[in-house]
């Protein structure tokens, strides 16, 4: 039967219809959330970026001493010219850049080798004790990245920087060579030992998901093990490796802690340490130019990754439940491998902690005799001769306050990050394919490319003054929370998206059909189902925030001091042992937190938190 055509509309009717459609769109949940997120990210991400660029192209107060005719606030190419050309450019930009690259490349490669090999051993061989290795592999990531560097210093310190001899010298009688104590070699080693966890997790997940049929086919055709590895396995694992490479490379490029501890004594500057140094010297223009250089580098790395991995994403073998049919037999070397690996892992964790602990039990740094044994730094009363007159750490109310600050910050950040994650996930997934959704997703990704130290620098500039309705936040706890949450945006969006996708759109649609409104759908369907993802994200964020240094080093004030920055503060004041006590406490809190939250999360875990 023919259905009559619909009557044509007058233009005013059309206008009314369009208005109705528009207002429905505007008030739909995902659009409201998307717009809200856009606004939030605009303030937290876009404006800082803009500010960063702005400062590098305007005259700053400090520049007037060099160029008296400059007018503060006016446009200038001075900073860029200065930092990119001539001998100044070489000293302040290119040399640190080269150092940063060296360290990033070295660390990434070394971490890849270590992590990849471990992954292979755990997933693909019959080495005994694999489960234990699996669990231990995650621990180095929990400790702050500069813990190893600090321990290294305690051990390998030599006279180049004067001061007291390190443990090595004490044990061996001779000072270690400088290239071993300071500079790129130890920085690379320490970074690699911290980040190998990434590669371990990524590569083992990839290896597990490979459908063994693919390799068996090669085997049946008579290919050698080696050939199979090269031609079949490697290409399939490549995307995972590349993801690990990108993450590690970017992080190491912007890391502050290690290079600060091991590079500064021999003037081995990296971009991150030069940024802080420039800021300390009042050279804001210099510092932000370097920050932008760092950002551009990060973008380039990601771009390269996209080009290499982008087309290969489809290599996820469909239906590859992966059973690891072929476990390589290690034969008589089984035990040897197991022992070697477990010793290695324990070393990487226990030795640094042990060294730090030993150091904290010495009254005067460098005096290794028994008479020097003391608990002063832990529970000693205030004594003007030691530690600038501060009491031992456990008795020090300042430290308790600082520890509480750190815990508070981590909890708040973890909570908001996870919450934002759900919101972002909903907004992005619900609007999959629309421009709005893409925009939100892209914006959320930006903090990934801004190194922590640059973020911190910009936030000082930005939030010093009132920003619209936002009061000036410098020196407040709120600022630290905002900065931490912003830095975690890409992570929270990614985990939120994956959590939402796991929930599946049909479950929410069933709720819609049943007549539930937005709140009901969120509270009764979405939140309960994303709980485990929420907890994993919470855990992950808690850990990373507790030990974050680069991000907050420029923003903390005595009122909002955090454990991580407190250690830097002590070190720079010459109270190295106090610093080490605080580090140990930090590690203890993080490990405890990991344990406690792991108990509560029922299904949440660090692995899940990392998105695998």
């Amino acid at each position, binding site marked *: 039967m023919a259905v009559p055509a619909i009557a044509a509309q007058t233009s005013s009717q059309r206008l009314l219809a369009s208005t109705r459609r528009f207002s429905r769109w505007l008030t739909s949940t995902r659009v409201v959330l998307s717009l809200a997120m856009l606004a939030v990210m605009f303030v937290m991400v876009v404006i800082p970026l803009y500010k960063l660029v702005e400062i590098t192209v305007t005259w700053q107060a400090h520049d007037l001493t060099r160029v008296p005719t400059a007018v503060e606030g006016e446009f200038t190419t001075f900073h860029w010219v200065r930092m990119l050309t001539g001998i100044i450019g070489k000293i302040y930009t290119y040399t640190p850049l080269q150092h940063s690259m060296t360290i990033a490349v070295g660390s990434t490669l070394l971490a890849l080798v270590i992590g990849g090999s471990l992954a292979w051993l755990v997933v693909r061989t019959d080495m005994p004790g694999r489960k234990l290795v699996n669990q231990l592999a995650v621990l180095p990531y929990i400790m702050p990245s500069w813990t190893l560097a600090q321990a290294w210093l305690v051990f390998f310190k030599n*006279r180049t920087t004067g001061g007291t001899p390190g443990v090595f010298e004490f044990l061996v009688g001779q000072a270690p060579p400088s290239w071993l104590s300071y500079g790129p070699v130890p920085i690379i080693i320490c970074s690699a030992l911290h980040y190998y966890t990434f590669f371990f997790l990524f590569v083992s997940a990839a290896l597990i998901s490979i459908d063994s049929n693919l390799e068996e086919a090669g085997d049946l055709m008579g290919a050698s093990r080696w050939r199979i590895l090269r031609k079949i396995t490697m290409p399939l694992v490549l995307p995972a490796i590349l993801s690990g490479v990108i993450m590690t490379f970017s992080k190491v490029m912007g890391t502050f802690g290690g290079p600060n501890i091991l590079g500064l004594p021999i003037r081995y500057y990296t971009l991150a340490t030069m940024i802080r140094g420039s800021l300390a010297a009042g050279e804001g223009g210099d510092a932000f130019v370097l920050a932008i250089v760092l950002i551009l580098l990060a973008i380039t790395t990601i771009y390269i990754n996209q080009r290499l991995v982008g087309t290969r994403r489809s290599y996820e073998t469909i239906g590859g439940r992966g059973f690891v049919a072929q476990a390589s037999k290690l034969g008589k070397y089984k035990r040897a491998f197991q022992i070697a690996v477990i010793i290695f892992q324990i070393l990487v964790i226990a030795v640094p902690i042990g060294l730090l602990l030993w150091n904290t039990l010495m009254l005067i740094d460098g005096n290794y005799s028994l008479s020097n044994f003391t608990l002063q730094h832990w529970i000693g009363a205030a004594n003007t001769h030691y530690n600038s007159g501060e009491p031992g750490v456990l008795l020090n109310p300042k430290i308790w306050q600082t520890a509480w600050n750190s815990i508070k910050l981590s909890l708040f950040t973890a909570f908001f990050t996870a919450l934002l994650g759900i919101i972002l996930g909903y907004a992005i997934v619900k609007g999959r394919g629309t421009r709005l959704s893409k925009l939100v997703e892209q914006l959320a990704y930006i903090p990934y490319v801004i190194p922590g130290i640059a973020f911190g620098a910009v936030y000082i500039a930005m939030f010093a003054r009132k920003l619209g309705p936002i009061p000036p936040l410098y020196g407040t706890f709120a600022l630290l929370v905002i900065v931490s949450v912003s830095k975690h945006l890409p992570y929270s969006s990614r985990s939120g998206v994956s959590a939402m996708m796991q929930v599946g759109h049909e479950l929410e649609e069933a709720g819609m059909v049943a007549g539930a409104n937005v709140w009901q759908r969120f509270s009764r369907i979405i939140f309960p189902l994303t709980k485990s993802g929420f907890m994993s994200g919470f855990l992950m964020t808690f850990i990373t925030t507790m030990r974050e240094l680069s991000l907050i080093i420029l923003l903390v004030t005595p009122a909002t001091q955090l454990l991580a920055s407190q250690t830097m503060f002590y070190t720079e004041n010459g109270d190295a042992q106090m610093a080490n006590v605080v580090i140990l406490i930090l590690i203890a809190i993080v490990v405890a937190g990991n344990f406690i939250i792991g108990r509560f999360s029922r299904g949440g875990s660090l692995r899940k938190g990392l998105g695998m």
Partner: protein
Amino acid sequence: MKTFVKLMTLIVLFSLVVSCGGTPAVAPVATQAPAVPVLLPTTTLAPVAEPVLSANEQWAKDNGLGPYQPATDDWAAIEAAAKREGTICVYANSSKITKLQKPWEALYPDIKWDCGDTDSIDVKMRAEQEAGNVVGDVWFNSDGHILYGEFVPNQWLWSFVPRDVVMPELTAEQPFAVARHAIDVWGYNAEINKNGCPLKNWWQLTDPALEGKLYTEDPMTDVSTMAKWATVAEHGDEMATAYKTLYGKDWTTDPAAQKDAFGQEVPNAGWLWVKKMAQNHPVVVDEIDIAYASVGMDPKVEPGYGWTGWNSVEDTAAGDIVMAPCLEMAPTIGMAKTSYLAVANKAPHPNAAKLFIKLALSPDGYAPWAAIGTYPATASIPLEEGEMPFDEMLSKTWLMNPIYDWENAAKVRDFWAISLLTPK
């Protein structure tokens, strides 16, 4: 990815465009010389136009600070006003500030003691002034170059010196109250060198034999160390004389005095010293470590010399490390780093601030920092036992000039950075 790149480009372009528009940073209009109140004659002359005061100047005037400080201090009124204000917030860069809490509370139990040991005071106060949200009442900090170079032109700090305090070194150009001078010196290992410091002249420090044995903080990242090298540059004439004394010839004959491969010129003997010092690659150490480093613990290893605070001597008294200052160095035995006291512009508790400054300049206020190597700025405060008399100290050390430092520190830093790369 494409969208991402587009977005970034947009942001960059946007910033460029906006900054071309050039909205200058917030800076109040500074009138030339803050006007001293003019007493108008009572005759009916055409009234002289009073100079228009900026908002900050008006505030200073209302609160009797800076050039508007009245000829006598009405302490009763000030105290009453301070009690009404109820709190004092001091930003001090020394942890010893906590020792002033008790004396304060004894004197003014009704006025709450807040804030205290603070990092990056200049950053914090700059932020507060630009935001218009002032929390800290008192600047109790060194960084004189920032104080005079940036804060004063912006009218972010106002001076206050109690009228009954005699502070001879104050000038119209540098009117801010001085809390103390801490002298930095070259230290040596007195245990090994039992006959005193082997060094008698600053130029000996540039001897290649001492490479790797000189310890200082990193001037590249520590402004106050850089300011000290700037001070050396400031005293070019004296350095020239010292050069002649040691080597018997003119400093211009030194090969390093020539323009180097990077086109750097050497304006005077002081700059020459900075250059040669850089070429000697002093070891970069943290402040307290210098005391240990310059003496070392193992007598077999020849210790060097460290540039550090004179008062570090007491800090290292534990154990058997002995560091002593080289007191016969030509042309100077050291430099005085100055700590200043100033009232923040638009401070919430200006009268409490005045009371604090009064306390800080009294013997009780100086006591936490009293040590050999530190000097108060007023002759009325007694010195430590065995300390060099004030006048002698002034004649033998260089007082750092914050304005010179402000204008030259950046240049000296670049000069230093480049010199590090030049061969000897």
